[in-house]
């Protein structure tokens, strides 16, 4: 048994399988950052920091004749979303009920995805520098309607090319912007999504939690997500009515090439 304590939960093997599948289904479409940045790991729950290869000089030394530096590391952060499920619903699922109420799990999965997206794209004050904070580029206005989007996307790519940042490029669209684009506006006879894909030569990603949009290079080596424990379902406690579970992960994120992304402001 590991730190997730799953075997202590009053949940059958069938129940765990159902919960794991439900969590995967909910998380996978919403984890936008993992579709666009480099992913390393998972390195395990015990993995606590990312090596930066940097040092800080130390002002003093234990004795004369020596000098010292201190290694700098980037600590991983942990995010956790707690929720509780009805034991009656889980018992019904064991009996074969196809419509077990797993809404609290769905909500927690969405919250974890939003937190990960926000941390990577916008940053987490005091814990992590996101792409928006790191990029030296001033944001380009997206425009009022989705039909305006190709112009700022092309302008962002031109900026990246001008700095020698090669493609392909990806576009992360915040929830509202994605909805508007997906509603099927046309641009020059092309559905807007297809038109944008041709400009980018890369994917357009639904990024819940992101405000506005972001164009970034997918060539690799620029944006580095390091996973400690990948997203996991763990057990906390239970009583006669509910079982309390959580979704959790640990990770760090760092920007190696700040100029390889451009924000598009809504």
């Amino acid at each position, binding site marked *: 048994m590991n730190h997730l304590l799953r075997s202590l939960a009053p949940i059958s*093997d069938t129940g765990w399988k159902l919960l*794991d599948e439900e969590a995967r289904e909910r998380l996978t479409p919403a984890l936008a950052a993992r579709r666009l*940045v480099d992913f390393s790991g*998972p390195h395990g729950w015990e993995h606590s920091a990312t090596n930066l290869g940097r040092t800080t000089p130390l002002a003093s030394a234990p004795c004369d004749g020596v000098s010292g530096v201190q290694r700098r590391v980037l600590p991983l952060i942990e995010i956790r979303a707690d929720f509780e499920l009805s034991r009656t619903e889980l018992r019904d699922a064991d009996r074969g009920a196809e419509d077990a109420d797993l809404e609290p799990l769905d909500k927690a999965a969405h919250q974890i995805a939003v937190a990960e997206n926000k941390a990577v794209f916008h940053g987490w004050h005091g814990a992590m520098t996101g792409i928006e904070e790191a990029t030296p580029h001033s944001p380009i206005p997206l425009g009022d309607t989705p039909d305006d989007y190709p112009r700022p996307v092309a302008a962002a790519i031109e900026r990246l090319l001008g700095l020698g940042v090669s493609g392909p490029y990806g576009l992360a669209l915040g929830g509202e912007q994605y909805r508007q684009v997906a509603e099927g506006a046309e641009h020059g006879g092309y559905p807007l999504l297809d038109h944008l894909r041709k400009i980018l030569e890369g994917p357009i990603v*639904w990024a819940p939690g992101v405000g506005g949009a972001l164009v970034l290079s997918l060539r690799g080596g620029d944006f580095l997500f390091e*996973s400690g424990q*990948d*997203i*996991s379902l763990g057990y906390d406690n239970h009583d006669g009515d509910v079982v309390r579970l959580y979704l959790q992960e640990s990770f760090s994120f760092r920007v190696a090439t700040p100029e390889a992304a451009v924000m598009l402001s809504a």
Partner: protein
Amino acid sequence: MGFDQYHEPPEELPPATRTFARLCASLTEEAEAIGWYEQRIAVETDPEALAVMRDAQGEEFKHFSMDLEFLLRRAPAWREIAHGVLFQTGDIVEHGEEAEAETLEAGGADETAEDGSLGIRSLKGARR
């Protein structure tokens, strides 16, 4: 160059399945190479050539083992059955039957990754 490791249209396969298929193809190639070296060593009489080929075959043992370990980490049911078969003494077939029955009768190995996570990892290149 062909892409024979894919049995289904590659563009319809998720990246994790394509990686799995590549490593399966690599495993096959390493096994073939081990077999070829075994035959060459059996007929070679020059001691120096034999030493070179034994060293080369050792490399293939290593490659095969790394491919296998990768695949077992990605396929929990395979790993569980392999646990019951590999590095055991006694009747191989018997161990195989027992391991298969234990794994499959238990409803298959848990699909969670070895670390207990949901095994989502990178989604770069994944379809929605």
